[in-house]
């Protein structure tokens, strides 16, 4: 029979892995589509966006989890938004100070993390109902799942659009760059194909 410690460890592991695959925010829950489509033309901005989302998700889940017993039901969304906006502003200031090129490349999409459904969804579904540890693990799992998805999409698009990865040439000389993959149409096509692939793998077809 499993001990309490083993049950807890299993729950933590399950929560962490849920965000990576079973409840992946992009492929399974279809959340955060705006940055998924907008910042995946290259891996570097996609990775930066992913790191910002992890930071905001972890911080907002910590704060929401700590004040979950004090939240008034009719004010909870307002509190979530206030919390998320604070950490997004800090992330935006950090990028402007230490990564000005990435800040310029991401433009309005960093402030737009405030309205990213993944973060408010995890605050409502997990952090406002669970203890601190599980909220942090959930945030890390969901954030990592979102970041990996963004990087996978961006990797395919950057490779096909420019023949490069992280700005370095990796394709042979005969490769002809497919410029459309760097444009919005490339984002929709790549996302659609990846969603189809994930649905095929999981055997869950509509």
């Amino acid at each position, binding site marked *: 029979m499993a001990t309490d410690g083993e049950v807890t460890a299993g729950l933590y592991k399950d929560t962490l892995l849920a965000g990576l695959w079973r409840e992946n925010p992009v492929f399974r829950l279809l959340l955060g589509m705006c940055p998924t489509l*907008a910042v995946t033309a290259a891996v570097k901005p996609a990775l930066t966006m992913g790191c910002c989302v992890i930071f905001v998700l972890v911080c907002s889940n910590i704060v929401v989890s700590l*004040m979950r017993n*004090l*939240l*008034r039901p009719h*004010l909870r969304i*307002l*509190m979530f938004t*206030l*919390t998320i*906006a*604070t950490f997004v*502003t*800090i992330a935006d*200031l*950090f990028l*402007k*100070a*230490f990564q*000005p090129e990435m800040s*310029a490349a991401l*433009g*309005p999409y960093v402030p737009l993390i405030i309205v990213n459904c993944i973060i408010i969804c995890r605050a409502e579904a997990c952090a406002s109902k669970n203890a601190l540890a599980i909220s942090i693990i959930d945030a890390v799992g969901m954030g990592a799942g979102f970041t990996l998805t963004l990087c996978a999409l961006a990797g395919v698009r950057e490779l096909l659009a420019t023949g490069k990865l992280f700005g370095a040439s990796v394709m042979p000389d005969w490769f002809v760059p497919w410029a459309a993959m760097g*444009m*919005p149409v490339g984002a929709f096509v790549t996302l659609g194909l990846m969603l189809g692939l994930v649905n095929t793998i999981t055997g869950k077809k509509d």
Partner: protein
Amino acid sequence: MDKVKYFFQQSWLLIVASFCFGLLIAVANAGWQGRILQNEEDKFNNLVVEMIPDANTSEVALENVEVESGKGKTRATSIRKALSADGQCVGWAFTCEGSGFADKIKLVLTVDAGFEKLKGYGVLSSNETPGFGDKIKDQFYRNQFVDAPTTELVLMKLGAPDVKDAEIVAISGATVSSEAVVTIVNTFLGQIKSHMQEKGQIGNGN
């Protein structure tokens, strides 16, 4: 009295959280503001050197020049003199800003030493729509301002973008952003030219 008590019972957490979050943002802003300003200064200098290749350095010629930007608002800007390696004035540069389609657009505008022709503009910050309004950063649009006269510029829907005159051909699909740039340039250029003539920094054109 009961209403006041009820108000605080319901919203004390919101008030406390707002104060704490505000403080957090203020601390982050105070800590990183210097670095953010330095990054902007570096970007300004890089853009000036890009538009005036002869420029080696720049120095402040006039500080806090107030420009009426419409609707009773005034904006202050500093005019910098671009100097060549041998100390000769090779142009002038200043920041200017105004409303764009989505947010404020902040530009660096450069003119030649005689204030007769534009050397071009560079975008310091803008949040225009990716793929449309953000084409104000593209060479197609920026090149039209190079060697244009420092008179009132006019935005045209059709025309010859290669001809160096006061007619600027709008970006297809981004008329509002195109117009915003022309309006910003016209607003600042005329007033700053008059100001510099008054101060004797340039000739009066007679």
